[in-house]
């Protein structure tokens, strides 16, 4: 059965989704920031966390993007095998990004990697980045995660030897120490372990979408405690709140490989989802 949604409605819904992601943080992220502000004892760090909370309020009140780096648009699309769109979904998503760039507005961030020429509308070869997953069902779930460069630039990937599992924690710590205040801590850290060179990076990015209030276990908790003990703090000015959450995702890998990717996310862990279709 073809999906009932029209192209126009879809484009408007995706543009609205971008607006939501840019202006309002998910409640679990705001909660984690509030808890950090309450727990922080360093006065400079506390003042920075208070500024962040105030900024979140102002962005929501005025309906403006919380950060001027409105990011590049990264989409995760989950499409049911029975969902039959009557139009080209990727083309419609691109159109929605162009519309949102003018309407919200968004900062034009997409440039050619070598000439550095800015396209002016956040569209270009490979941008927006859309990841597809085919699943059973008759729905289409779209998640957008606008990603700023400040934190993305501090991310890292290393191909370890299979016997170096014990070095994974130190690799994450090293990445965070080198980043210092540059990626706008308090951070969310996504760690992808296994897969292949590119699959590990994908896992790390997907890990950033995990709710911050989920229970962290084992390696996640170990990394969280070790990072927060370093004293880098909010904005790298010192204090105990460097990381809000660490999430690890794994996949099977080649017996001779151990890829590890660390994706760094600033405090503004922006993402929003919408579902089209589904059960009838």
């Amino acid at each position, binding site marked *: 059965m073809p999906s009932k949604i029209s192209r126009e409605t879809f484009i408007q819904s995706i543009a609205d989704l971008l607006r939501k992601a840019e202006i309002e943080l998910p409640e679990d992220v705001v909660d984690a920031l509030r808890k950090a502000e309450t727990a922080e004892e360093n006065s400079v760090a506390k003042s920075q966390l208070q500024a962040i909370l105030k900024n979140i309020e102002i962005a929501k009140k005025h309906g403006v993007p919380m*950060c001027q780096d409105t990011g590049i648009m990264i989409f995760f699309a989950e499409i049911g095998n029975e969902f039959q769109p009557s139009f080209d979904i990727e083309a419609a998503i691109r159109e929605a990004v162009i519309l949102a760039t003018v309407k919200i507005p968004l900062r034009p961030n997409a440039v050619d990697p070598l000439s550095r020429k800015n396209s002016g509308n956040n569209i270009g070869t490979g941008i927006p980045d859309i990841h597809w997953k085919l699943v059973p069902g008759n729905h289409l779930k779209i998640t957008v995660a606008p990603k700023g460069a400040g934190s993305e630039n501090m991310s890292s990937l290393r191909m370890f030897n299979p016997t170096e599992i014990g070095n994974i924690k*130190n690799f994450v710590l090293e990445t965070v120490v080198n980043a210092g205040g540059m990626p706008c801590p308090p951070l969310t850290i996504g760690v992808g372990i296994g897969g292949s060179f590119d699959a590990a990076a994908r896992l790390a990015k997907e890990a950033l979408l995990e709710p911050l209030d989920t229970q962290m276990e084992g390696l996640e908790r170990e990394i969280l405690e070790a990072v927060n003990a370093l004293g880098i703090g909010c904005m790298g*000015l010192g204090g105990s709140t460097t990381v809000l959450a660490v999430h690890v995702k794994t996949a099977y890998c080649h017996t001779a490989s151990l890829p590890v990717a660390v994706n760094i996310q600033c405090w503004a862990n922006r993402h929003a989802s919408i579902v089209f279709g589904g059960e009838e």
Partner: protein
Amino acid sequence: MEYHLRTPLEIEDIKKLNAGDIVYISGEILTARDEAHARILEMDEKQEELPFSLEGTVIYHCGPLMQQTEKGWKVISAGPTTSGRMSKMTPPLLRSHGIRAIIGKGGMKDVTDALKGKCVYLAYTGGCAALAAELIKEVKAVHWLDLGMPEAVWVLSVEEFGPLIVGIDAKGKDIFSEVREKAQEKFEKQK
């Protein structure tokens, strides 16, 4: 200590600041990031005159989100960008121009000597762009729009812009590198 300063800044205004102090700035600030830094240095080398003066100015590491309206440019969102990217270009910039303060986020590497006696680095909370936009009262001019909206030089009129934390003072004290060194030490110890 808390200071309220007005531009243009004199050397005496900034020499009294200590790392950790809180500062609010009123007057005029100029945005400049990667591409603007590169162009200024390129023009300096060719001994060409810049379309704006940098004497006594405050540079803001920021690529703002602007909207063109019938009344001119409007600031939507304008928080600081990562200053670390400008670390290498900053010492030559300070050699040839009387910039008295740099606002940014995340700190800078190897600039304390270049700042000594003439300039301070002020940290503004990263990502707090909606908050910053409220403190920007007017867009006075824009230069080099050909570099794109984020990379252009925006001349902004601000009122009580802050709170800014003195991250690196003009006496060589750098909070960011102190925090980073301590973190590095702790990291080495637990390895």
